C-alpha cells in the first residue's frame, strides 16, 4: 500500500501515451480525467469514473498469461455490494423452475462438482473511447478486459436441481447491486442453450483466489465467449423464464443493429432492428512495445501481444512493418483454452531511423478476421479494428 501511495503521488498519467494508438483517440476530457488510482485491494488502475467505480487495467499488465486479480479491471453500473458470506443466499426460481430452491454458499460447494474454465472477460464497451466519431458512455481504452481461470459450479447443474420446465426459454440473473434511485435494477438473461452450456459457471474463484468484492464476491456468472455484461456479479437470484425477459438492460441497453455483426445468437431477444450483443469478436492487442516507444536501430526486438475471440480459438496472428502490404506470421504462445487469450510474439530489427508503424491482426478458427475499419454502432461495441502501433526507431 505504501507503493500505492507513491503511484498516487505520481499523479496524472500521460494522456498522449494512452491515446496514441490506431484509429481514434480518447476524447480530450477522458484523457485528462484519467488518473492512476488504487481501489482497496487493487493495484493502481486507470480510473475512468469514481462512482460507480469503473477502472481499467493498464495494457502493460497484459504481459501475464492470466491477469493478476489485483490488476483486473472493475466495472459497475451501480453501487458495489458488500456481502457477507454467512448471510448470502442464491435463489433459483421463476415461472419455468419446477421446484424453486435456495442455496447457502456451503450448500452450493457441497452439492455440486467444481469446474474450471480459462476465459477472457471483456466489457462490451472495451475500446469505446477510441470510436470516431465518439459515442457517449464510459470512455474505455484497451484495458476493460482480462484473462482468468474461473472456478465454480456449472450453472446447468444448479438449474437442474430446481427442475427446468419444458416451457423454459431464458434464464434471468440478478445481483445484489441496486440502483441509486428508481432506475432499472441490473438484471440480465441468457438463452436457455447458453445457460445450459457445460462451460457456463457460477464462479466463486478467479486465478485460485476468492472473487474480490470489485469482481463479484461471493459468486458471479461466467459466460465464456460472451461479453462481460452477462457475467452478473454478486449473484443472488436466478430465474428460469418462459418468456423473453424485458428489463431495461436486455431490451434497451447492450444492443447492436440487426445482422451488423453477423446473425443473432439470442433469437428470443431479437427485435425488427436490433439484437443483444453476445459473442466477443476476434481481436488482438500489442502489449510490448507500448505506442510511442523508442526501439534501437539494428537491434533485435521481441514484440509481445495477445489475441482472442468468442471461443472458436485463435488460428493465426500476422504482423506487418509496411502498413499492411506484406504480412508475416507471429509465433503463438501456449494454448490456454479456447475461451482464453493467446500470447503471440515476433522478432524484428528496425532498419531505418524515424517514425514507423507496426500492425498485427488475428484470425479466428471460425475464419473471421479483425476489421480494417471501424463498424460504427450506437453504443460503441465490438471495436476490433487492426491495431497500428507507432514506434520511433533511433
Amino acid at each position: 500500500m505504501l507503493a500505492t501511495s507513491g503511484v498516487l503521488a505520481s499523479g496524472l498519467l500521460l494522456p498522449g501515451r494512452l491515446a496514441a494508438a490506431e484509429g481514434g483517440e480518447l476524447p480530450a476530457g477522458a484523457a485528462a480525467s484519467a488518473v492512476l488510482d488504487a481501489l482497496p485491494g487493487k493495484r493502481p488502475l486507470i480510473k475512468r469514473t469514481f462512482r460507480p467505480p469503473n477502472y481499467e487495467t493498464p495494457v502493460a499488465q497484459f504481459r501475464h498469461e492470466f491477469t493478476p486479480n489485483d490488476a483486473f479491471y472493475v466495472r459497475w453500473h451501480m453501487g458495489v455490494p458488500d456481502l457477507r458470506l454467512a448471510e448470502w443466499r442464491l435463489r433459483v426460481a421463476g415461472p419455468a423452475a419446477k421446484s424453486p430452491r435456495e442455496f447457502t454458499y456451503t450448500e452450493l460447494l457441497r452439492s455440486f462438482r467444481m469446474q474450471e474454465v480459462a476465459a477472457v472477460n471483456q466489457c462490451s464497451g472495451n475500446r469505446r473511447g477510441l470510436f470516431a466519431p465518439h459515442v457517449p458512455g464510459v470512455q474505455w481504452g484497451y484495458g476493460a478486459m482480462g484473462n482468468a481461470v474461473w472456478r465454480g459450479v456449472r450453472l446447468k447443474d444448479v438449474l437442474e436441481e430446481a427442475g427446468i420446465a419444458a416451457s423454459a426459454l431464458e434464464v434471468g440473473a440478478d445481483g445484489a447491486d441496486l440502483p441509486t434511485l428508481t432506475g432499472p435494477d441490473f438484471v440480465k438473461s441468457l438463452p436457455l442453450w447458453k445457460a445450459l452450456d457445460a462451460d457456463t459457471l457460477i464462479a466463486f474463484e478467479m486465478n485460485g483466489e476468492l472473487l474480490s468484492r470489485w469482481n463479484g464476491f461471493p459468486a458471479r456468472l461466467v459466460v465464456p465467449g460472451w461479453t462481460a455484461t452477462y457475467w452478473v456479479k454478486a449473484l443472488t437470484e436466478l430465474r428460469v423464464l418462459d418468456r423473453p425477459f424485458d428489463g431495461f438492460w436486455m431490451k434497451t441497453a447492450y444492443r447492436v443493429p440487426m445482422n451488423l455483426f453477423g446473425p443473432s445468437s439470442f433469437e428470443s431477444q431479437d427485435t425488427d432492428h436490433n439484437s443483444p450483443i453476445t459473442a466477443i469478436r476476434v481481436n488482438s492487442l500489442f502489449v510490448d512495445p507500448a505506442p510511442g516507444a523508442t526501439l534501437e536501430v539494428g537491434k533485435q526486438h521481441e514484440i509481445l501481444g495477445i489475441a482472442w475471440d468468442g471461443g472458436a480459438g485463435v488460428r493465426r496472428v500476422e504482423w506487418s512493418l509496411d502498413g499492411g502490404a506484406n504480412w508475416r506470421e507471429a509465433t503463438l504462445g501456449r494454448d490456454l483454452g479456447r475461451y482464453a487469450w493467446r500470447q503471440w510474439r515476433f522478432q524484428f530489427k528496425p532498419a531505418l531511423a524515424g517514425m514507423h508503424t507496426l500492425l498485427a491482426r488475428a484470425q479466428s478458427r471460425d475464419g473471421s478476421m479483425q476489421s480494417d475499419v471501424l463498424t460504427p454502432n450506437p453504443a460503441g461495441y465490438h471495436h476490433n479494428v487492426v491495431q497500428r502501433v507507432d514506434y520511433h526507431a533511433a
Partner: protein
Amino acid sequence: MLRELATRWLFAGLIGIGPALASAADETGVVLAEGESRDRVLAMCSMCHSLDYIVINSPFLDRTAWEKTVRNMVTVMGAPLTDEDVAVIVNYLAAHYGATSVPVNDP
C-alpha cells in the same frame, strides 16, 4: 461507496500522506468548469454519480445529445429533476462540455 471513500481518507491519514494527495484520487478532486449554475448542476448530477462522467464525455456531445442524455437520467434512471432542472443542466453542459467547448482539464 461513501464508507469506502471515508476508509481511504482514514488510511491516507494513517500512513501520513497529506489530504491534498488523497483528494487527488477520489471524486472530490473532480472540479467542473466555472459557469452559470455550476453548483446547482454539480449537486443534481452528483446525487447518483461522480462528475467525471461529464468530463470524460467531452467535448463531443452537442446540445441535442446532452439533452438526450440528461432526459434519459430522468425517464430511465429516475433522477428527480424538473423540466427547469433539466434545462439548467443542459445549458451548462452545452456551454462548457459541448462539442465546440475547449477541453477542460480535470482536475
